[in-house]
């Protein structure tokens, strides 16, 4: 496995971790699949109940572990399954984005998108756009934790 790690850590293919809320965006991802749309395999989705569940710690951890981009996707404002979760998420994550920028990290590596369960096309488009953007930005060097590489 260690060879595989070294191979990709050379920065060939970027890794994008996407946190998707169960009710809208994850379902939108399902629809993208059912409609046989395609987007780059660089994106790996983690299912969470709500975009309001996202603790900035999750995002930081992804960057530390070498992810090149993180995309949080949730229900459109006003459509939250839990009625207010995405509002809290929106506030928290926009503040967080400014914080990482302040800390000297490229804020473009972190995005929040609203994707409904009927927007399979939007899901695929956003994932493709994010991947292209991250490819242009190059690998995440600033926040990657070198020790993590050694551990694995």
């Amino acid at each position, binding site marked *: 496995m260690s060879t595989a*790690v070294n191979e990709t850590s050379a920065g060939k293919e970027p890794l994008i971790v996407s946190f998707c809320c169960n009710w809208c965006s994850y379902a939108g991802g*399902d629809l993208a699949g059912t409609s046989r749309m395609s987007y780059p395999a660089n994106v790996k989705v983690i299912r969470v109940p709500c975009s309001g*569940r996202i*603790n900035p710690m999750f995002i930081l951890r992804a960057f530390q572990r*070498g992810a090149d981009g993180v995309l949080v996707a949730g229900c459109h404002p006003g459509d939250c399954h839990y009625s207010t*979760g995405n509002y809290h998420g929106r506030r928290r994550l926009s503040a967080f984005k400014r914080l990482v920028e302040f800390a000297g990290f490229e804020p473009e590596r972190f995005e929040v998108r609203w994707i409904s369960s009927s927007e399979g096309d939007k899901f695929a488009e956003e994932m493709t756009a994010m991947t292209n953007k991250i490819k242009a930005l190059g690998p995440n060097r600033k926040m990657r934790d070198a020790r993590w590489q050694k551990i694995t």
Partner: protein
Amino acid sequence: MPRTGVFLCHCGSNIAGTVNIDQTIEASRNFPGVVHVDEYRYLCSEMGQDIIKKAIEDNNLDRVVVGTCSPRMHENTFRKAAAEAGLNPYLLEVANIREHCSWVHKDMEEGTPKAIALLRAAAAKVALNEALEAPKLEVEKRALVIGGGIAGIQAALDIAEAGYPVDIVEREPSIGGRMAQLEKTFPTLDCSACILTPKMVEAAQHPNINLITYAEVEEVNGFVGQFDVKIKQKARYVDPVKCTGCGICWEKCPAKAPSEFEMGLAKRKSIYVPFAQAVPMVPVIDKETCLYFRKGRCQICEKECPPQAIDYEQQDEIIERRYGAIVVATGFDQMDPSIYGEYGYGQHPDILTGLEFERLFNASGPTGGKVVRLSDGKPPKKVVFIQCVGSRDKARGMNYCSKICCMFTAKQAILLKEKLPDAKSYVFYIDVRTAGKGYEEFQRRAAEEYDVAYLRGQVGKIFPEGDHLVVHGVDSLSGKVVDIKADMVVLSAASIARADAPELGRKIGINTDSYNFFNEAHPKLKPVETHTAGIFIAGACQTPKDIPDTVAQASAAAVKAVGLLSKEMLQGEACTAEVDEAECSGCLHCVAVCPYTAIDAKEIEERYGDGTLKRTVAEVNPALCQGCGSCSAICRSGSINQKGFSNEQILAEVDAICLQR
């Protein structure tokens, strides 16, 4: 170390087409904790499920990962299978290999490594899963209906007919609501009382319905299946058991006050029933105007009452009762059009609102059913109706269309022509909106057969001139200014939410829109549900609507309530939040973000040195928690964590996915 089994589904060629099964299976063997791997063509089939069940038993597996379609599709299927093999269903995780991998990537070069990463993440997460139990909630098999108008009556009757006891709480002394005030109903012109009164009586006599009139909801606590409600029964000063409704008391009572039921156009006595067909036929004493309560003398009603039902000592009472479901049907109000100075409402007795004008047609109304000018008692020759007074007006009124005005105006114009064949009606309108069965035909009949003049335009001012009211308006279609010497003017005042709707909403835990109407859970697919499970809405408290729509919605709300009450037990959410009391600092940020008021402060005692220390911590009610995780995200000390989606589990997934790098 967990003993995890990984099962990969081919889904025919749906997965196997773009994911190399053999490579993926081999890679899965190396995940930490994995002791068993297998693959099958269709895991969701009977055969496939049996493979999983047998492997659990044979290999003593305590964790399972299935790599299949989306968990939104078959998570339940596999969890059920795991449970049948004796494993707690929440110890199984699904990796979404089909929708999120094989279907969106074109070849194995892309698909296989991603499938491995997704399975690795699921295996990392499942290692931290705990056995969970969805809370079972009891259901109190009784419903509460707030509001005794046609919506409340219909909902209560439907629930009662399904076999469950219902209480109707009505603020006024009688049920009946707005519909009781109407003379006729569009578009068929049946008499409102003729179709409503039997329903009121049916509700009163139904063995499953309990009427609590002259009462208001004070407080609602609890949650779906177990709402604890405090109802304030206002003192009637009349014993409803003794009272026979003979009417002697209100006949003899010397004090008078404006009648709410007659929109202030007539007087009622201080001891009164609001209208002749009131249900229950038990009067109330209005303390504000009663001579005995004001001056300490009179007591005529007490002396005259044959069964001696008058009781001046009665006090307000609080009724406490538990309900499984609540239907809110509190209806609407009419906007006060006096803010429109140009119409002069309130300054001239012959300028009325639609609801006031309606009362003039009623045989027991303020004029005994004669349509006459309130100024001089003469029948009007020309009546001008003005539409959209306060509706569709974002500057001074409400931005929405009140929906019922076009139709009730056509109705009143027709009724007027039938009562007074010499009378002529004019209607100033912006648009005529008559969507509904038989509605357009009805409105056209008014214009074509009943000689009602429809003028597209608005009125700029109304001023008295001699005996008349001059209505100065514009017909926009001809571009002409129109002056009508009218005898009466009827304003279609906007239908608005009850002024205290937001307050009631706060009490029962449902929210209102920007116009103070109650919000439905989904504008299309959940029209009678609210965001609070177990509370439903019906009728014009949601948005202005006519009687057919109100009745339909009331029955819909009743079905939802009955569906809830018919359950033996309610299955709660298993992935609820949990507080680590040792860590919790009691900042209660979680209370603020919880959309379900599922979190409360709790005092705990701790050993501290030699003594004990009291401090506040958060406490989650698992019955209320819906598992959104907002509290876990906001908690500064990480002491509130969501089961099934814990911080550790999500971080483990992140780590596993990033191992690729």
